[in-house]
């Protein structure tokens, strides 16, 4: 189904045009790289024999190659954008007609921090490729997100800056099928969280921490730690069926997911390492596996609504 042979004639025409521009861009890139890398041995020979004109030719070649690559970057960006807007946009409609991709939009930094899934504010933040649509009655969207934070350490030599990954993957947001006012966060269970919880609940000195919600499903409790500002509302959201569905969803993912329920919105963070929806430059577009991984991701996220049964709206919310 994901094979390019299933594309309609109009999309196939787009693919052919994209392949033509890819070949042309690749050719230019190879020539520019060749000019650049030819300059290095020429300059080395020039330095070895202290011949000034040879050194000059080498340096000119190197910089000419670099400049040509950077001048051509705009065309490569346009090709990548066209791949998303013309090809991916059509392909995802095979999953659901309502699906749209906006490569230039993503999850805002405020939405990212407002989801309450992350304790630190990112110092470097990048989000793109927002896919949005409706699955039945449920509006949803998801975007690729990369967030990092820096840590400053004071050493004898001065201040040292270290960058750490806060999150890399896809963040999914959807309209939840129940109304709620309070905040509930479900996080993968961290090492030592049970000990921290014991201290939090058994000693008054540590009781200022977030309120942990202890739920009945043993598998859910083994994998996740739930925190909420309202014990009852968190149980209203996390029904026994919902807990089972979350476990099932988590089993389908390589790395553990995190969820939050804030302002009638469910947010799920899926940690992933791959950058999706990117057009290849050095590999042909005319292969059957071209969009396989991208469409698998869209299908996987689209199925979240069915897995969590978000279309059942019998609790006073349409």
């Amino acid at each position: 189904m994901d094979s390019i042979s299933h594309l309609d004639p109009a999309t196939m025409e787009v693919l052919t045009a994209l392949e033509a521009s890819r070949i042309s861009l690749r050719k230019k890139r190879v020539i520019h790289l060749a000019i650049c890398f030819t300059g290095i041995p020429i300059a080395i020979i020039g330095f070895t024999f202290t011949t000034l004109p040879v050194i000059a030719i080498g340096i000119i070649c190197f910089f000419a190659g670099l400049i040509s690559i950077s001048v051509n970057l705009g065309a490569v960006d346009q090709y990548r954008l066209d791949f998303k807007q013309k090809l991916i946009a059509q392909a995802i409609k095979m999953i659901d007609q309502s699906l749209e991709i906006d490569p230039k939009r993503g999850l805002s930094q405020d939405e990212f921090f407002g989801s309450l899934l992350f304790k630190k504010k990112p110092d470097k933040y990048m989000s793109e490729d927002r896919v949005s649509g409706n699955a039945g009655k449920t509006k949803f969207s998801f975007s690729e997100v990369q967030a990092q934070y820096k840590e400053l350490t004071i050493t004898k030599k001065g201040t040292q800056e270290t960058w750490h990954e806060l999150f890399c993957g896809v963040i999914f947001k959807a309209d939840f099928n129940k109304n709620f006012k309070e905040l509930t966060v479900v996080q993968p269970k961290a090492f030592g969280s049970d000990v921290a919880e014991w201290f939090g609940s058994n000693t008054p000195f540590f009781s200022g921490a977030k309120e942990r919600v202890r739920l009945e499903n043993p598998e859910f409790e083994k994998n996740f730690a739930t925190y909420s500002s309202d014990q009852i509302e968190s149980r209203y959201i996390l029904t026994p069926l919902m807990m089972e569905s979350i476990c099932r969803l988590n089993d389908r993912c390589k790395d553990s997911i995190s969820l939050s329920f804030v302002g009638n919105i469910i947010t799920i963070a899926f940690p992933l390492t791959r950058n999706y929806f990117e057009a290849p430059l050095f590999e042909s577009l005319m292969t059957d596996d071209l969009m396989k991984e991208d469409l698998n991701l869209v299908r996987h996220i689209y199925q979240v609504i069915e897995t969590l049964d978000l279309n059942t709206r019998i609790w006073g919310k349409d």
Partner: protein
Amino acid sequence: MIIALIIIIVIAVICISIYNSLIAKKNQTDNAFAAIDVMLKKRFDLLPNLVETVKKYMQYEGDLLTKIVSLRSRASNPGLSNEEKLSIDQELSREVKGLMVNVENYPNLKADQSFLNLQNTWTESEEQIAAARRNYNAAITDYNNAIMMFPGSIIAGMMNYTPKTVLSIPETERNNISAKDLFNS
């Protein structure tokens, strides 16, 4: 001498912590039941509107409606104990479930917007009460664990704290619902 003093202080701090923690857990169980109470009140308040809406359409369910009204007036009695409130709620849930099944025989009622809203609110309140009951059971389990486990059991014994019972569903509701029985009744 100093070591003995430190040991006494440490033991005293531990005892005070356990004592305070037991009181907090006991209060938590009372608070959790109060939350169920609030939810029940909210649900009981829905009943007059529900009865008013359905009685316009359901000509043959007079007995059922009278029973629901009578349960509602019993529920509004201020002197009821917790157990009595829960028992009335269970009886009411059963009757309203029966009412919802009979709605199938009244197409005009099924199409009535205010009835549909009430039905949704009723379903929502059921789920909220279920959540409140689960919260109460979690608070009771936490309290029971604290008073039955060492060293809490020693101090709980001195405070005359006894284990509390978790809420469970009645035996009749534990059996799987048979659609056949439901429609034959």
